């Protein structure tokens, strides 16, 4: 069929089954927006900042498992999108971002709104394309979606010069993809899997170390089954919250810098790590030379480069978690004796009793952890929870009772403040039946607050709970612990009127200072079905605990404000 490049972009999106595009128009992408205007196969959400468009597409992808799509113009439109690309890249989120570019003839002339998008985005995308010929466009779109969702997923940028979108040509969307130089290894090596099974059978203290890859691979149920077949204890990373389910007795909790005592001790004492889609991030391992000193390591990952990058691996298995775990279960099912690990489970049980994940509640002031647990009680599984970055993020990861994969959405790898609200918008578009709550702080929420307008216009009723301590809390916590309480530029006492801001933008705002007010506000926000800010005044100097100081060994945790070290 004869059509222009802009229409080809739209046709490709339709062929890929895209329902929602998040974006912001501008000069170089206008041809495509003209075609968006003419079609009604997918919806376009106009965010009020390109960064928010990309985070929204990212949130959509994390909530649904489908490829998120964002569209921006050249120059500043693209540079605003970079933080969004980098955020998705670090967490391996499948996404296609389409950017306009100046016409081919202007490239390299420092034209108006020209920037080298391919050069800038190279280190923060899985791959990127500059479309130089209209005839390449259908293939490139097809490949972009394929690359984004296959193997280790990631964001892909397609940069399209303006004259390409204006030019007419024949459109045939390819049925299949064949990129000779890109063939991810999906199936795990059978011999290696057998060896891993034997290692598990021989271990005395095996531990499942569950990473975000399990969620990306949609392998949550299988991993639960693997744990249950052998009654093998498990720890989750920040990115894997929800895989095991909060009530699962085998789940010790989250490990790492703000992991709970039992999880970090489990990792320190295990004799066999079964790492599934996890990458031994520095926030997880603490001091590497002290990390899991007694353990052999089984490492399953679809990205071979993750294996052996930081930790020596005894049983490397490159492949998709889902298939490999299926094979592991098959190998173990008839041979494993769950009683073998009962002593080990008992030890961990005692660790949990000794220092449970807890906090000291108060009647005078609202504790941030209380808010999170309260939302967990009231909404539980009905909600998708997003967060920004900082103390509130860690408290949410520690205290919310996550019950399923894709329920918890946060920027783990890049740690992007301003992620939570637009990601919540994307998640709500993808899962309209769920209540979407963004836990945020008085620091983070200001970085993308313009999305109040977006959410109001499109009636996307996400609830932002601002755990307001008048501080850039996590930095303040480090200043308390490691900088002799010199609170350099972290006091945020000068505050906007959050309630008024929300209402000025068409949302609804609440100021909350008591627990009763909080319940009322949350119930009211849900009933009103509008975008909301619930501004909760919380205790100012609350710390995220336990904490492993950066560079310290995982077993050396600061457990409470009173007892300095264990």
């Amino acid at each position: 069929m004869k059509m222009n490049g802009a229409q080809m972009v739209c046709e490709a999106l339709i062929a890929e089954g895209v329902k929602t595009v998040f974006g912001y128009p501008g000069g170089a992408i206008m041809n495509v927006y003209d075609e968006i205007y003419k079609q009604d196969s997918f919806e376009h959400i106009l965010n009020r900042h390109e960064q928010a468009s990309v985070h929204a597409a990212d949130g959509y992808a994390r909530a649904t498992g489908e490829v998120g799509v964002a569209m921006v113009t050249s120059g500043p439109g693209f540079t605003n999108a970079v933080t969004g690309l980098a955020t998705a890249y670090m967490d391996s989120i499948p996404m296609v971002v389409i950017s306009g570019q100046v016409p081919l003839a202007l490239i390299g002339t420092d034209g108006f709104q020209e920037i080298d998008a391919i050069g800038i985005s190279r280190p923060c995308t899985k791959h990127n394309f500059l479309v130089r010929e209209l005839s390449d466009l259908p293939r490139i779109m097809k490949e972009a979606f394929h690359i984004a969702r296959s193997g280790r997923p990631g964001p892909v940028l397609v940069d399209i010069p303006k004259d390409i979108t204006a030019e007419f040509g024949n459109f045939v969307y390819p049925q299949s993809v064949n990129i000779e130089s890109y063939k991810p290894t999906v199936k795990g090596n059978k011999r290696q899997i057998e060896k891993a099974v034997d290692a598990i059978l021989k271990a005395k203290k095996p531990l499942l170390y569950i990473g975000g890859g399990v969620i990306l691979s949609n392998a949550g149920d299988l991993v639960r089954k693997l744990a249950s077949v052998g009654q093998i204890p498990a720890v989750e990373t920040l990115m894997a919250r929800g895989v095991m389910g909060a009530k699962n007795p085998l789940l010790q909790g989250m490990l790492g810098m703000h992991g709970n005592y039992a999880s970090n001790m489990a990792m320190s004492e295990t004799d066999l790590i079964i790492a599934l889609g996890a990458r031994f991030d520095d926030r997880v391992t603490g001091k590497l030379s002290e990390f899991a000193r007694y353990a052999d390591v089984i490492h399953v990952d679809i990205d071979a480069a993750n294996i052996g990058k930081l930790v020596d691996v005894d049983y490397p298995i490159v492949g998709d978690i889902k298939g490999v775990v299926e094979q592991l279960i098959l190998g173990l099912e008839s041979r494993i004796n769950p009683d073998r690990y009962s002593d080990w489970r008992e030890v961990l049980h005692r660790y949990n009793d000794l220092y449970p994940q807890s906090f000291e509640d108060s009647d005078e002031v609202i504790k941030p952890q209380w808010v999170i647990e309260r939302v967990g009680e009231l909404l539980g599984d009905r909600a998708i929870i997003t967060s920004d970055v900082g103390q509130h993020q860690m408290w949410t990861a520690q205290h919310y009772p996550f019950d399923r994969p894709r329920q918890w959405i946060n920027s783990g790898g890049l740690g992007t403040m301003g992620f939570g609200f637009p990601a919540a918008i994307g998640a709500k578009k993808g899962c309209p039946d769920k209540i979407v709550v963004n836990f945020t702080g008085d620091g983070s929420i200001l970085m993308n607050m313009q999305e109040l307008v977006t959410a109001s216009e499109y009636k996307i009723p996400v609830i932002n709970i601002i755990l307001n301590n008048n501080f850039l809390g996590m930095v303040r916590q480090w200043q308390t612990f490691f900088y002799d309480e010199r609170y350099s530029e972290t006091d945020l006492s000068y505050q906007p009127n959050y309630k008024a801001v929300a209402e000025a933008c068409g949302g609804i705002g609440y100021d909350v200072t008591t627990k009763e007010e909080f319940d009322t506000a949350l119930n009211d926000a849900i009933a009103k079905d509008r975008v909301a800010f619930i501004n909760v005044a919380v205790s100012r100097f609350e710390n995220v605990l336990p904490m492993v100081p950066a560079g310290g060994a995982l077993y050396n945790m600061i457990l409470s404000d009173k007892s300095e070290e264990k």
Partner: protein
Amino acid sequence: MAEARRVISILVENESSVLSRVSGLFAGRGYNIETLTVAPIPNSNRSRITIVTKGNERILEQITKQLHKLIPVYKVVEHEEMVEKEMVMVKFPIEESLADIQALCEAYNGGIVNVDIDMIIGMVADEPNRVKHFIEASRRYNPLETVRGGVVAIER
């Protein structure tokens, strides 16, 4: 872990941004590049990039794996069994002994490639270590300029 020198040969799709993808990966991840050569492979849409790098075992393994992840990379050959050659051209003043310079170049698989009114240009293609020795030896003849190419390598 001890540092080792390694020659890595990368077969890539011949597209405009592929060299920046490869060199950017080295720069971004802090890997070392000692030499880099690139040229298209005849009668194909592929190029070969040859990189000499240095690092401990873990780094060298990461380099190979990270290169593999680049979409336009077909193949990464990282071998200790490579035949390596490198070339160098040296410009000498005309006052130096043409015969001596010729003899020196010939000793290293090379020769004189150009002589004009005020200079002599010698060229040598040999193993990287021998090229180094040649450059040292050439100092006796007051070289005006030395231009060294990168390593090219082929599997044995």
